[in-house]
């Protein structure tokens, strides 16, 4: 597979969290608005790209018996960097994401890519893989967040009270607050996943 293939596979064919059903906790918890979802996605992408690069560079040095522990240490180091940077420059976002920033450590997508891809491929390929999967994750979170925000609040791109984004629904629109509550997260993700499967099936029928 070429570098371009490794990059683009993360954007549709194996897009997390839909195709790779991993990393569900942040997906469900932080997607109350599109911006929050994208923030979480970008933080995860940074950790994923860096950990893929380092795991790949060190793959010949790490003994197989202790590889999982070594991967976790590499991942955790980058998570601490993200944690401190976000506290310093994006305080409000970091307050909102809260516990889910340190929990990037146990996001199965990252450990999964380290184990399944980066520990077997060269750094350039691993970088492309990390970037593709990371951006796919960011897009998924942004789309899911935007849908929940649109139905639950009537806005798009809401950040805080001084950056309220755009009110796009008609004026008599009653916000569907269920979408912003925890049960709404499960239902929205489930329906989105079902629709994605439907599109794939239709494509397969047309192609096959």
């Amino acid at each position: 597979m070429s570098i371009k293939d490794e990059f683009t596979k993360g954007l549709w064919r194996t897009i997390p969290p839909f195709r790779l059903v991993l990393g569900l906790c942040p997906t469900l918890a932080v997607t109350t608005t599109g911006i929050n979802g994208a923030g979480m996605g970008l933080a995860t992408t940074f950790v994923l790209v860096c950990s893929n690069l380092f795991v790949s560079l060190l793959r010949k040095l790490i003994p197989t018996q202790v590889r999982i522990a070594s991967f976790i240490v590499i991942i955790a180091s980058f998570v601490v960097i993200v944690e401190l940077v976000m506290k310093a420059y994006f305080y409000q976002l970091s307050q909102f994401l809260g516990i889910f920033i340190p929990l990037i450590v146990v996001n199965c997508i990252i450990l999964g890519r380290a184990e399944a891809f980066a520990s077997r491929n060269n750094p350039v390929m691993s970088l492309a893989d990390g970037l593709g999967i990371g951006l796919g994750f960011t897009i998924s979170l942004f789309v899911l967040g935007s849908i929940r925000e649109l139905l639950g609040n009537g806005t798009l791109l809401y950040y805080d009270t001084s950056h309220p984004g755009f009110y796009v629904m008609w004026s008599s629109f009653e916000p569907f607050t269920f979408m912003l509550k925890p049960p709404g997260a499960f239902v929205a993700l489930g329906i989105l996943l079902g629709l994605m499967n439907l599109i794939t099936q239709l494509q397969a029928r047309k192609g096959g």
Partner: protein
Amino acid sequence: MGDFILLMISAILVNNILLIRFLGNCPFLGVSRSMDTATGMGVAVIFVLTLAGMITWLVHHFILVPLGLQYLRTIAFILVIATLVQFVEMVIQKTAPPLYEALGIYLPLITTNCAVLGVAIINIEEGYDLITSIFFSFASACGFALALVLMAGMRERFALVEIPKSFEGTAIGLITAGLIALAFSGFIGLV
């Protein structure tokens, strides 16, 4: 004592760790396909989470705080949890082979269960003391087991009904989880 009962109700029903706080959802959807695996995972999580809650609290207050290394919390906790899981696995294998057989593959999986690290961090951020931390960890794990077993009970029945093809598997699982979460949100205001 009254406080502990309230904390227990709050952690199990009102702020259920799986359905309301969204911690530990990967195993929730992964192992809830049958009742046996769900019970195994539930018991393993209760055991490890209670131990991990206690040990991470001790590590934070007796190692990280005196040395001024709080910013290393994430790395320190994940290492403690990974080591603990490995250790528990070895001890159970030596002392209680039947239990080891029963918990089997679920023990190593717990390392990457974000509920364990999540509860450890909540214990520190909420400023709980040692006893409260242990109690909160135990109660959260019970909430996890309860939701997992409920979910498995419902998913076992999917075999008997017709589901639209594109919604089979995870998609319908997520929607079911949403309905269970909706039922649990009826407990809001209980505490």
